[in-house]
């Protein structure tokens, strides 16, 4: 454990990413304290540029852009984490069972994930949210549904590979139950891939969520970065900051998560030093 922390700490971009991510999380958690009240509230005249009274200015309806961005962070992070958690749980379980048992379960899963690979996932998410009407629940569901197949494939691959490894065969030959082998021997060895892929999936989930809300498919009661950008489109020529600032927020958050995810990868799977 300490070895892992040391390796991670040596990776400067990863540390920077972690710092940024923690800052974003802190802002999201403190949102109601920093900017109490609803971010939908009209506070001033519209199209005020940044740094004139309000840090990021106001949007086309006169809402405080800073409040919108800060509250949007909660939505993005919450949806990102929840959707990913569901996708990881479902995907890892299905993939693990398919990889370990093989046979019909595996064939079925492969057909399933192949199908998902054919359907453009973003379009599918759009269709799902539209059909189920946009709420936080339907957005989380849609993102989980399109995200679990890649995780399932990854875990299936890992479990399949390990199923044939000699230390697993040794467990079988000693008469261990399948549950014990999976939970005590295979899963701990597959965990690092799952963690790394899962953390990168959070970033993707946030991107999908912002895309959906940009198109107008977000819960009308929650503030979202994509929503602000989508609404601000009409004023792009004059009040460009309404679109720019939330986008930078998305970029910074997603980049921070990616850096941390890659730092985790390097720390958990140390490769021989490059030539």
């Amino acid at each position, binding site marked *: 454990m300490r070895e892992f922390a040391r390796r991670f700490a040596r990776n400067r971009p990863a540390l920077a990413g972690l710092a940024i991510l923690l800052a974003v999380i802190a802002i999201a958690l403190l949102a109601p304290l920093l900017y109490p009240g609803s971010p939908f509230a009209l506070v001033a005249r519209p199209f005020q540029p940044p740094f004139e009274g309000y840090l990021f200015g106001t949007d086309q309806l006169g809402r405080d852009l800073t409040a919108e961005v800060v509250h949007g962070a909660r939505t993005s992070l919450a949806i990102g984490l929840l959707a990913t958690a569901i996708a990881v749980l479902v995907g890892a379980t299905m993939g693990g069972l398919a990889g370990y048992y093989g046979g019909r379960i595996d064939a079925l899963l492969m057909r399933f994930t192949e199908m998902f690979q054919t359907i453009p996932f973003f379009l599918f998410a759009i269709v799902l949210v539209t059909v189920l009407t946009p709420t936080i629940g339907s957005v989380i569901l849609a993102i989980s549904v399109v995200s679990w197949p890649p995780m399932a494939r990854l875990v299936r691959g890992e479990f399949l590979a390990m199923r044939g*490894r*000699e*230390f697993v*065969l*040794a*467990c*079988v*030959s*000693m*008469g*261990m*139950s399948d549950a*014990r082998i999976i939970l*005590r*021997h295979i899963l*701990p*060895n597959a965990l690092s891939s799952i963690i790394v892929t899962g953390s990168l999936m959070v970033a993707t989930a946030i991107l999908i969520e912002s895309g959906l809300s940009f198109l107008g498919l977000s819960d009308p009661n929650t503030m979202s970065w994509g929503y602000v950008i989508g609404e601000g489109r009409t004023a792009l020529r004059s009040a460009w900051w309404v679109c720019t600032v939330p986008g930078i927020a998305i970029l910074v958050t997603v980049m921070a998560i990616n850096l941390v995810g890659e730092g985790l990868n390097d720390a958990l799977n140390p490769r021989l*030093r490059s*030539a």
Partner: protein
Amino acid sequence: MSESDTVLAIESLTVDLPSWADRPHAVEDLTLDLRHNEILCVVGESGSGKSLMARAILGLFPSRHVRPSAGRILYRGEDLLAAAPEHLRAVRGSRIAMIFQEPMTALNPVLTLGRQIEEAIEVHQPSLRGAARRRVLEMLSAVHLPEPERIYGAYPHQISGGQRQRAMIAMALTLEPDVLIADEPTTALDVTTQAQILALIREIQATRRMAVLFITHDFGVVAEIADRIAVMQQGRLVEHGSAAEVLDAPREPYTRSLLAAVPSIVPAPPRAAIVQAPVAMRVSGLEKTYRSGGVFLGGSARVVHAAKGVAFEIRRGETLGIVGESGSGKSTVARCVARLVEPDAAEIRVGDTDFGRLSRRTLREARRRVQMVFQDPYGSLDPRHTVGNLIAEGPIVHGTAPSVAWERALELLELVGLDRRSAARYPHEFSGGQRQRIGLARALALDPEVLIADEPVSALDVSVQAQVLRLLADVRERLALTVLFITHDLRVAAQVCDSIAVMRRGEIVEYGLTQEVFAAPRHAYTRELFAAVPGRERRRART
């Protein structure tokens, strides 16, 4: 150039390793020369630096952290270590050529063999381009490849391992180099294929009067082809001299211990008590077929008969060896008997239980009676559990109290020659030989009636191999173990097995007491196997 002239002279070569390696030098102060018209074998165990020394000649260092820090390598009077890159490149492939261990990975999978062999001509003698194809076909014939035209247009994955190695040799010889460096070229090959390639190398060396530097870890190979021998250990040259000198009268203790560790082809005398013992395991009618490939829409399926009608029996306390080359089905048989793979049909009797027909649930309990030791020391232990846990887990799963199981684990560690404190350590802290000992301890933890050892020493250095085999012999005496021993090495089988079964393409072609089979093999394939064992007849002295 006269016969005893030096073609390649290595003087006080020292190659540094990066700071995080386990020793400062890969090669230390090595002085060796290679003479015209001879085969010099450099022999050593893993970590001896022999491979790196060979690669240093052509400047093929694996990374920029591994660099020569002292010495010279003189070829025709010029120091290759100090040569300009263009000059070194001009020497590579045309004057000094090299072949490697694993031809499948050493060849580019997306280019045809003809293209890859021609490349040497393109790079060094572009003016010959028009005649290149003809030359390549000549070379392919020279290495006795059938249908050179077909091989010319084939891709590496489309031909067999032995043929690939011949193609590699053809590639190396295309520009008629003075020196051929062969880095363990037969290690990855079956024993019969190895014999053919060794014969080919001998033939080529003799007809072209080349200097061959042959790297190997196998003393049998050395005995088969060497004119002179150099022994390396931990980067240093320990001993060198003519083949007769080194093999018959080694001076250094290390050389002597290495030679002593090589298992002899002469089998140990049979142990009398066994012939009377009851049968511990009887297998009959073992069938296993693998099918792969598409089934629908007219896809072609590939069918491999891994085991056909295999039958044998082992008496209590006896060690039966199953010997065969790759693809013989010996590993499949081991796994089917242990029911790690389900056979298509089989009767497997352990004692009086029909082991083969037990249901999944009853099987789990019964599994403790048949335990296995695996081949790969690096893959057979879960890296995330301590050694003690790994050994104690089996008994715990079968109901033993953890404290009792742990105590037993400590006893077993001592039995296999390891310290009791090893129990708290992780597998990566141990060497290959030690890991095999741990694997053995784990298998013994459940007090099995039958122990299946699937190539347990194939991945080990010869000196470590000798130690582990001694341990195995010791343990089986003490515990009166019944052992099914799988191996591809006849010499190992001679040392350890009371009876042997020779397998070929899924069938047992010969079966009997080791001493009898070795003295008078009946099947043609068995005789072929024996003939292929390297070093049986030592190389005649050169006239």
